[in-house]
């Protein structure tokens, strides 16, 4: 790779900004700003830096509506908002999906809009850590903050997760490398274990790599649980791992002072889904008979946990909350976006700061191609290709402030560093405008009906 000289040509430094990429929410970034643009980012990982130094070629700058030829046409804000409000007010089964890359303040208006029109509010958890939340509901949640891990943990286990690729500073800032209060030598005081069928970039730098076979998670955790309970494992290999290795690993896990387990989408996307995580959590319950173990899901977006915490606090359910009966309901397999789309139930889809076009399986996107899609986002992406109304938002943590929740549930206020492009609006403003306009349409309908 080519050498890149440090950025020296900048006007000012904005210190202590929060990264708006993954669930690590690193809050020590310095933005180098020139002419109102971020030209360099200090301390961030490759992912965070590339997100903050966005691609302006594909930045959504103006509101757009599809014309009769199927081409997006620039329009003014009033026209676009009216069109979106008309679609939402006329919908029978709308879904408002996304929210994970916007602020809690925006969600506040989103809930009110959802309640008003009887929508389903769902976020990215539905396609990533939904099963984790179900498992937490099933068997509990032995959680710790990342600071506690930094100061105490002497064994870190990543399972079904590749933080070197998806949360690059997780090891560097919170778990493995930093020196903590009780771990003065940093990396040397900790054992890093990766359990993943793939010999991932994290596995390559781990002390122990357990490469169990594909879809073997469930069997493997059960085997460790058996070993922890002093039971005899009667097979020579479980999920492709020799019995002796499992016994030895169980012994090691029992004898640490403080262990932390982080699990990713490798567990939630394979066949046993939430049962994998049930088993991982119960394995920790067993380990807690001997020593202290905690676990945290490796949340992907910077505020995906925020939506779940916020919804659980406001409505009692973490995601996939359905308001169609006038009160909140939550039923897995029924009120979740993918199921609603593959059953072709949804008739208007609004996506806020998310990209279903890129990240939904084809079977679900096929239904999005048949219904109107409203997009509130900052970049032109695969979802824009199938969107009918496009409303350009602003970049939380860079162009406007907002609250977000880190993967361990710590709320962090993300401050504003630069001004947003003149033609864009804050997400909070957009959703509030939509709420007011839909309310107006509903009031008019009610007045007409009462005559």
């Amino acid at each position, binding site marked *: 790779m080519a050498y890149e000289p440090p950025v020296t040509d900048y006007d000012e430094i904005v210190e202590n900004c929060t990264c708006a990429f993954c669930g690590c929410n690193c809050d020590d970034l310095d933005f180098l700003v020139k002419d109102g643009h971020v030209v360099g980012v200090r301390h961030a990982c490759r*992912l965070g830096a*590339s*997100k903050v130094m966005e691609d302006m070629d594909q930045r959504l700058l103006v509101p757009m509506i599809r014309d009769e030829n199927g081409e997006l046409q620039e329009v003014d804000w009033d026209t676009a908002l009216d069109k979106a409000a008309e679609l939402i007010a006329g919908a029978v089964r709308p879904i408002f999906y996304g929210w994970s890359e916007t602020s809690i303040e925006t969600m506040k208006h989103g809930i009110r809009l959802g309640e008003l029109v009887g929508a389903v509010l769902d976020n990215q958890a539905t396609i990533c850590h*939904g099963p984790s939340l179900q498992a937490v509901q099933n068997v509990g949640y032995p959680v710790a903050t990342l600071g506690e891990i930094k100061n105490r943990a002497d064994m870190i286990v990543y399972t079904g997760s590749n933080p070197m690729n998806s949360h690059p500073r997780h090891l560097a800032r919170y778990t493995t490398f930093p020196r903590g209060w009780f771990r003065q030598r940093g990396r040397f005081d900790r054992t890093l274990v990766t359990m993943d069928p793939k010999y991932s970039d994290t596995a390559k730098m781990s002390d122990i790599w357990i490469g169990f076979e594909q879809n073997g998670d469930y069997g493997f955790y059960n085997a460790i649980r058996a070993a922890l309970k002093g039971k005899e494992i009667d097979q020579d290999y479980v999920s492709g791992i020799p019995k002796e290795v499992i016994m030895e690993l169980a012994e090691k896990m029992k004898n640490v002072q403080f262990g932390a387990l982080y699990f990713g989408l*490798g567990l939630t996307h394979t066949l046993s889904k939430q049962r994998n995580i049930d088993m991982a959590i119960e394995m920790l319950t067993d380990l807690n008979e001997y020593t202290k173990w905690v676990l945290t899901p490796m949340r*992907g977006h910077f505020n995906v946990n925020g939506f779940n915490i916020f919804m659980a606090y406001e409505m009692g359910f973490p995601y996939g909350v359905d308001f169609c009966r006038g009160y909140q309901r939550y039923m897995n397999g029924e009120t979740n976006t993918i199921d609603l789309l593959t059953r072709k139930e949804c008739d208007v889809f609004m996506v806020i700061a998310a990209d279903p076009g890129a990240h939904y*399986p*084809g*079977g679900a996107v096929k239904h999005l191609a048949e219904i109107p899609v409203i997009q509130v986002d900052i970049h032109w992406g695969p979802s824009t290709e199938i969107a009918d109304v496009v409303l350009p938002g602003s970049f939380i943590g860079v162009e406007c402030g907002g609250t977000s929740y880190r993967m361990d549930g710590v709320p962090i206020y993300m401050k504003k560093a630069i001004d947003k492009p003149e033609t864009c609006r804050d997400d909070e403003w957009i959703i509030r405008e939509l709420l007011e306009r839909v309310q107006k349409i509903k009031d008019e309908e009610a007045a007409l009906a009462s005559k």
Partner: protein
Amino acid sequence: MTYIEKPVVPKVIKFEEPTAKEYKLLNMMLNTGSDIYQGACKKRGSTCKDEYRKVCGVAYMDPKDMAKLGVTNWESVKVTTDWGEVIVSAVHSRDAPHEGTIFIPKGPWANVITSHETYCCCDPTYKGIYCTVEKSDEEVLLMADLMRAVYKKYVEDEEGIPELESLGEMPVFKKK
């Protein structure tokens, strides 16, 4: 510049079995998921660009499997599952050996062929899908062209899609 135009992939020249039997079609297991190149390009917003095709429209394969198919780095392969088929470039995986498994970073290409089946657990099955891989002469489509070819939302003549002009690497919309 915080990105590169395409992922750095190893070029494996020496195979353990230089006379490996050549296969027309391989039965493999497909995994999808995030990758650092995919993440950096997607979140930067450069999804229309060739760069995104290079980071997402690729299948990371074991060098031995590529030898069996007779493909080298950046040649096209067709991956087929029960849910669809897609053309992607084959490249040597940096996580090899993982014979019998391919990895496509999450994105529009991977999701043409992933399973929307949630088994009432809300989460589609993105990993561990049976697929077949074969050599192909077709070119990997750019993101906008792929979305148009697969989901056909705004095309009237669906038969004529292959002849349509490419939407290119920049957003296409009518300015006021």
